[in-house]
């Protein structure tokens, strides 16, 4: 026997209710000792990495200790230039709206380090290739604020 669905007796959409809410979230994330050192150096047009005093591994982003042998590291200057390891071409923004101009996000292995950086790559999507040599483009010195956006993008060198 099929019972009548009760829902059918009462539906009046104007009587239906909803509840709105907002999740409060606010945070401050400090760069940490080594991160701080990096961003401050960036303000002065310098790129730094951290080299392990024992095994010689060069960390980028810089770290205060080596995660393999727990020994101390020292800051070393690097050029900031690198090589594209991987990339993706985004044609939608984070709200899935079409972008006027596609954005390229790349993992860039930095010269003289064992680390990498993920950043925007300002290039023609058709011309990007893995192994491409790229260089960073920094914001105007007076506009730098100690954030990763102080690097505007990377460009083919």
């Amino acid at each position, binding site marked *: 026997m099929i*019972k*009548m*669905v*009760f*829902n059918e007796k*009462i*539906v009046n959409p104007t*009587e*239906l*209710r*909803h*509840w*709105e*809410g*907002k*999740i409060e*979230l*606010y*945070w*401050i*994330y*400090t*760069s940490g*000792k080594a*991160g*701080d050192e990096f*961003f*401050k150096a960036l303000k002065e047009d310098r790129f730094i990495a951290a080299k392990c005093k024992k095994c010689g591994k060069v960390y980028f982003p810089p770290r205060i200790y080596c995660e393999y042998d727990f020994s101390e590291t020292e800051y070393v200057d690097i050029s900031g230039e690198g090589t594209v390891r991987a990339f993706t071409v985004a044609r939608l923004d984070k709200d899935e709206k079409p972008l006027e101009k596609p954005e390229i996000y790349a993992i860039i292995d930095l010269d003289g380090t064992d680390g990498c950086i993920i950043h925007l790559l300002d290039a023609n999507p058709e011309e990007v290739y893995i192994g491409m040599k790229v260089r960073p483009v920094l914001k105007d010195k007076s506009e730098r604020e*100690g*954030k*990763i956006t102080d690097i505007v993008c990377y460009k083919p060198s």
Partner: protein
Amino acid sequence: MAVGKKDISCPPEAIGTPIKEEDLKKGKVTYYEDHPDIRYAWTAGQAISRFLNELKKGRLIATKCNECGRIMFPPRIFCELCFKPIDDWVYVKDTGVVQTFSISYIDPDARPLPEPIIVAVIAVDGASPKMGIMHILGEVKPEDVYIGMKVKAVWKDEKEREGAITDIKYWKPVG
């Protein structure tokens, strides 16, 4: 009292680099801050919508299943035991019995409250046993609350009601 700052000791190797708020303000340390705007809308569904609309009229409504005979409160549109749509709406009383309670000294952000609030689960009279809602108790001292205490809803003025669970200000002891 279980609130307030505690002196927590940590081994010397775990001591970090302390920073003050003014270090951030003066730009001594670099940081990233964000305040994401996260909003949501929760649809109440047919049963809770009616429940909320009835609150505005100062009434509590439940639903009934003719198969198991249960009067379900807060109302739902589907009997989860008989696995069938419910059969009827019934009004229940605005009195009930405390089933369990908790005394809270902090607000939802864990800030100390000047006066503790008593949160209780109240089985409502007229509904099937143990059917009830969570609400707050008032006009009673924390030390006087007990399981089994009879309570009655204290409603907001009719003009102030907006069809929300807060249309009931609190439940006070009776008898």
